[in-house]
């Protein structure tokens, strides 16, 4: 891959790109990792209600060090603030929100996403003795829309956008959109449709980094 006339987005760049697409009024859950940082790029006057599965509705920005409330954390166990209008619910009610279709959007990290919308984000092998499920399975099946933010390939250059996932699934046929460090890709009944690429990247170059077939709508 000799093409290098482009600079992949860094973690903040990916978070910022995803943040751009979240409209005011949505109720949104952000998963651990890059997704959590999306909130930093939603301007405070664009009212997006962030839900944390530990029972916080209306998560606000990180507190300044002298304003930390040690009773107030998000699902990544990071100290947060609460927006005016926010509220607290218990865990069963919080997952009722997640599972019950009340989240307009959930954004998760992933190891792999398949062209049929399957997501794998919790275990690298079925034989792994130590499992880390957390709340991802509940969120993945429950939100109205599931987006994934992840690097386009592994550190070793292996594709993460797959024909079929090779890692154990978190949920089937749920991912609607993927934000990578290279592109924004919709998951449609026809497969992966590229919406946006970073400057300087060609569709051919993106395809070489992607296992499944990519499509692009004809420009109008």
């Amino acid at each position, binding site marked *: 891959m000799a093409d290098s006339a482009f600079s992949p987005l860094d973690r903040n760049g990916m978070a910022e790109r995803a943040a751009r697409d979240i409209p*005011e009024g949505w109720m949104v859950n952000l998963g651990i990792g890059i997704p959590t940082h999306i909130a930093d790029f939603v301007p405070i*006057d664009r009212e997006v209600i962030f839900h944390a599965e530990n029972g916080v509705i209306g998560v606000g920005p990180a507190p300044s060090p002298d304003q930390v409330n040690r009773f107030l954390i998000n699902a990544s166990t990071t100290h947060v603030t609460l927006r005016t*209008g*926010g*509220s607290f619910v218990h865990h069963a009610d919080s*997952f*009722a929100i997640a599972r019950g*279709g009340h989240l307009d959007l959930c954004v998760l990290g992933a190891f792999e996403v398949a062209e049929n919308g399957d997501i794998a984000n919790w275990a690298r092998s079925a034989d792994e003795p130590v499992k880390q499920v957390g709340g991802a399975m509940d969120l993945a*099946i429950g939100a109205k829309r599931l987006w994934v933010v992840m690097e386009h390939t592994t550190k070793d250059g292996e594709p993460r956008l797959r024909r079929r996932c090779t890692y154990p699934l978190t949920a089937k046929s749920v991912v609607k959109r993927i934000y990578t460090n290279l592109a924004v890709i919709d998951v449609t009944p026809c497969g992966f449709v590229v919406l946006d690429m970073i400057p300087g990247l060609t569709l051919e170059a993106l395809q070489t980094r992607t296992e499944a077939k990519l499509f692009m709508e004809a420009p109008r």
Partner: protein
Amino acid sequence: MIDKFVHSMTDAMAGIADGSTVLLGGFGDVGIPTPLLNGLIDQGARDLTIVVVAGGRDGSAIERLLSLGRVRRMVCSFVRPASLAGRLLQRGELEVEIVPQGTMAERMRAAGAGITGFYTPTGADTLLADGRETREIGGRLCLLEYPLPGDVALIEAWCADRWGNLTYRDSARNFNPVMAMAANLTIAVTRNVVALGEITPETVVTPGIFVNRVLHVPA
């Protein structure tokens, strides 16, 4: 800025289609969203399924909705034979599904919580179980119940803010918070409007995420 307040009954009732399932809050005379029921009567939707604890007292807005022939089916926990609903039922002019009151609440809670079915011992040994799927769990006969979602919920609140966060007064809470989470379109009438933040985070009963529209009708 999120602002769930609507400023007319027309806006509050917009889009309620014929054939809708409408969840109606309240128990006894308490916590009934009467202004919204009157709004629904004026709005005109018909062929409705209503879900409400009981068939409606004489002179109530529910009785009026029934008397206008707008309800095809009622899901409730009891009907008095002497009531209008009882008479319509006996004349074959109203379908009625009788559900134990706790099962009714739980089926709506399941709808709101993404639970696609549940087992309960309630009613399993009774004629309400006739022809239905049962299962013995832990030595007890249990009945399989399915969610009871609404297209619309009409509920009554005591205080509301512009995010749709709600509180209820005393026993006017009853079915209202459960129905709020169980419907696609939840419309609340509130007696009081408060600024965002005035309902403290620990005391919000229904978070605004469950509420689509709020109409202020002072007490």
